[in-house]
């Protein structure tokens, strides 16, 4: 008989997931234990009272036996993440994780005085503004809706600094406008950018899958989708290839990988699609990047030029204390690096101060900021303090809208393209999210976590998995462990992304056609309605009921 002696001892009913196990179905094949990267389960032996009958006729007798079983570990270090790999591999459906509503993990996991860290997305905010908005202005009779299958649609967005009409250096020659001077580079690209996830945060193979999808969409389907490298450098081979033109190279406060990038510059055959200066990200605003030592494998050390250690990007760019300085130094030097042929944009975490930042950029006299990327609180990350993930940040929808309207007020809408991200496509419906953001004033959106979910990531906003920081990613996506990475079928992952993007493209047309638009309805807020009065007031869209 057991008595309650030490109530502080951790048992699995304190943990967020309980393993539900049926010994009578289990054949002890060991698949689940092998599949569990968190060592949350282990083989064990239990003393059981069993009734057996071994004679030719029933002679049941009761006995005690040692039965081999699969047990959940009673340990915070090895708590089950609910990833479900055990269930995936079990041939007999004998095991699965079940959510424990009475979890005490938040009280237990700060052992050693360390903040809780995890990956994934915000697990606190459940409400989605975009799901409360619908496209309610449908073309009916007075103007015809278009045919999404038959009409041609210009689904492109600017990346680069757009000049005011009066600033265009045109001269008139024989009734023709002639360009007579340099203008900032602007690339017209697909309005969905594959967001920055670094080599390091992602396994090399997962990063490669996103690259493959990007190239395939461009080469095979003429969809000019661009991918951001993230702050972890890029393979030299890629930088020396033609495919560099599909890549947006990111620089963040750690400058990881830039030594290699600079050395590769003389060998670049083509210009990259753009440069993205990361000031902050929505998942952990005001905090720098974090790549735990567990994920800094040899190849990551090589690409970033660092030893095996926790890689912490500072929370700000050293020496940057004002927008003006940022514009002068970073924008100018990165513009100059590629001889002013490549647009340079900036990515910030959405914040109560975003409009001020955007206004400053809009007024920059050098006209060298080619995009303002706003990342909202529901953005994902490979590693962050949980307190950052859940409790800091700003919703992106109203902030993009405010930035757009601030530009409208000055007659500068569209000059610095607005790109929104952070939880877009969270429900799997990225086309609808993107379309609504565009109607509210975004030129385009960027998607990150959705891509790895297409690669097979099973993490969600209900606390499932979220172990991107551990190096133990059960799907081989956010890990550098070669044995785990082998779980990822790169071609299948790339194919999933390609298929999704083709579907998204079709869905975008399906939303443009009913409102009668053949080009993206940037700022067409009259197309949206909401049954939520507060949202209607905040976003200046029509309230309906």
């Amino acid at each position: 008989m057991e008595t309650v002696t030490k109530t502080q001892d951790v048992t699995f009913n304190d943990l967020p997931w309980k393993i539900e196990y049926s010994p009578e179905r289990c054949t002890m094949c060991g698949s689940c234990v092998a599949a569990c990267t968190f060592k949350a389960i282990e083989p064990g032996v239990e003393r059981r009272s069993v009734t057996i009958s071994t004679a030719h006729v029933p002679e049941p007798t009761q006995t005690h036996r040692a039965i081999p079983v699969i047990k959940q570990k009673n340990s915070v270090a090895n708590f089950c993440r609910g990833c479900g790999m055990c269930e995936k591999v079990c041939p007999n459906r004998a095991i699965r994780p079940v959510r424990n509503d009475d979890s005490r993990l938040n009280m237990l996991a700060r052992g050693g005085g360390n903040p809780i860290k995890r990956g994934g997305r915000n697990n606190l905010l459940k409400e989605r503004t975009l799901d409360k908005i619908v496209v309610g202005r449908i073309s009916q009779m007075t103007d015809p809706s278009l045919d999404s299958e038959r009409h041609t649609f210009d689904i492109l967005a600017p990346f680069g600094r757009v000049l005011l009409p009066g600033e265009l250096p045109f001269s008139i020659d024989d009734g023709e406008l002639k360009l007579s001077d340099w203008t900032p580079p602007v690339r017209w690209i697909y309005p969905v950018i594959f967001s920055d996830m670094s080599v390091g945060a992602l396994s090399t193979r997962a990063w490669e899958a996103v690259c493959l999808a990007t190239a395939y969409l461009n080469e095979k389907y003429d969809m000019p989708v661009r991918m951001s490298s993230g702050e972890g450098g890029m393979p030299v081979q890629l930088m020396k290839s033609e495919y560099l033109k599909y890549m947006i190279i990111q620089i963040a406060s750690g400058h990881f990988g830039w030594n290699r990038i600079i050395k590769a510059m003389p060998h670049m055959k083509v210009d990259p699609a753009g440069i993205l200066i990361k000031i902050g990200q929505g998942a952990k605003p005001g905090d720098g990047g974090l790549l735990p030592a567990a994920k800094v494998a040899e190849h990551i050390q090589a690409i970033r030029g660092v030893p095996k250690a926790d890689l912490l990007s500072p929370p700000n760019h050293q020496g940057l204390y004002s927008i003006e300085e940022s514009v002068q130094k970073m924008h100018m030097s990165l513009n100059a690096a590629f001889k002013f042929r490549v647009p340079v944009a900036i990515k910030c975490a959405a914040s109560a101060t975003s409009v001020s930042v955007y206004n400053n950029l809009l007024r920059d006299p050098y006209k060298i900021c080619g995009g303002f990327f706003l990342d909202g609180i529901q953005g994902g990350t490979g590693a962050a303090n949980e307190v950052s993930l859940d409790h800091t940040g700003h919703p992106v929808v109203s902030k993009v809208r405010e930035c757009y309207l601030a530009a409208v007020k000055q007659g500068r809408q569209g000059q610095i393209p607005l790109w929104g991200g952070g939880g877009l496509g969270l429900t799997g419906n990225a086309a609808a999210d993107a379309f609504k953001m565009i109607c509210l004033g975004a030129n385009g959106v960027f998607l990150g976590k959705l891509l790895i979910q297409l690669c097979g990531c099973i993490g969600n906003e209900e606390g499932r998995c979220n172990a991107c920081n551990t190096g133990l990613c059960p799907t081989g996506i956010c890990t550098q462990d070669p044995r785990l990475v082998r779980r990822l079928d790169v071609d299948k992952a790339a194919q999933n992304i390609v298929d999704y993007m083709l579907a998204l493209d079709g869905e975008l047309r399906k939303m443009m056609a009913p409102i009668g638009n053949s080009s993206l309805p940037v700022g067409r807020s009259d197309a949206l309605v909401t049954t939520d009065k507060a949202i209607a007031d905040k976003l200046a869209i029509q309230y309906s009921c």
Partner: protein
Amino acid sequence: MCRIGAIKSKVAFHPSQALRLMLPQQEGHDNSGFAMVMQDLDGVFGQYKDKPLLSLACTQKGAQMVENYMEAHNFTRVYEWVPKLNRKPGLDIKAMPHYIFRCYDYPEQVQGASQAAKEELLLDTRLALRALLEKEDQGYAFSLWPDVLTLKEIGDPRDIAVYFRLWDDSGELMAKNVVVQCRQNTNYDIVRYAAHPFFIQGYTLCANGENTFYTKNKEYQKSLHRGYIGFESDSQNFLYTLHYVLHQLKWPIKYYKHVITPLPFEEIEKRPDKAELKLIRQSLGHLEINGPNTIIGMLPDNCLITCCDSKKLRPVVIGGDGTTIAISSEVCGLNVVIPDRDPANDVYPDEREVVVITPELEVQRWKQ
């Protein structure tokens, strides 16, 4: 869908012609209003071509307010024509108490000023009059420009014509250009300012259809120019863009079409002038229109233009007989006003075409 039209002739004609052009197209308008802008005037205004002409519909008090303002700002009245109204009972018209068409001399201080300075003064004066009248709801100032007369009224176009005696062909009201519209009221309260043709600084425009980028256009135009106000109708966006491209940016007329219906990027890439076209599409993206439209415009130099949306979702036809050319939503209008023309020469512009009719009645067509 409103029905729109324009007539241009080597010989001055009466507004009754404009009515004859429009009335057969009754299927497409709902007797909610009639409006026209006449330019290159003859008749009673023939000898005042260089004098700013104010077109006004107002109350007694409004008339006094305007008089006081113009006097205070040193505009001297040189001629006034007041229509002899036919107040026959039973007419479907929501008439204003007063209709004033008055020519002024420029204030002394701008007599020797440049044309541009005079144009700015006239715009500011019209805007001031509009604000003045709007504040107390005392009337409407439609245009203040030399050699241009505007009439807008709510009601049945036939009754409006009876009321103003436009059928009479008395020789008083005549012009070589008329842009005209009969309304179908779908989207907006029936207010006089919402009736096209719209006018700003010598540019006249009317359009039919629906501008699905109205919000985008309006939000952008509000900050472009002090004269871009009102927005009672989405057709105003087209006028303001026309004015912005030609008057403010001073670009050749062909670029108007590139602004409102830019070529798809795929086509731009194949063009020798792709750098310029891409920049135009980038910088003026918020002035793109994206709906079913036909546009008829009249320029300060008496040229008429017409073009359509990029999917050709609204009809328009141009026909003439050497002396007179008309643009019309429907060919039945042309058949009435220019019956002896050769219909084989009629022009039906497509979605990428711009047609310009010069003062010499030369028809220029070009592909975007």
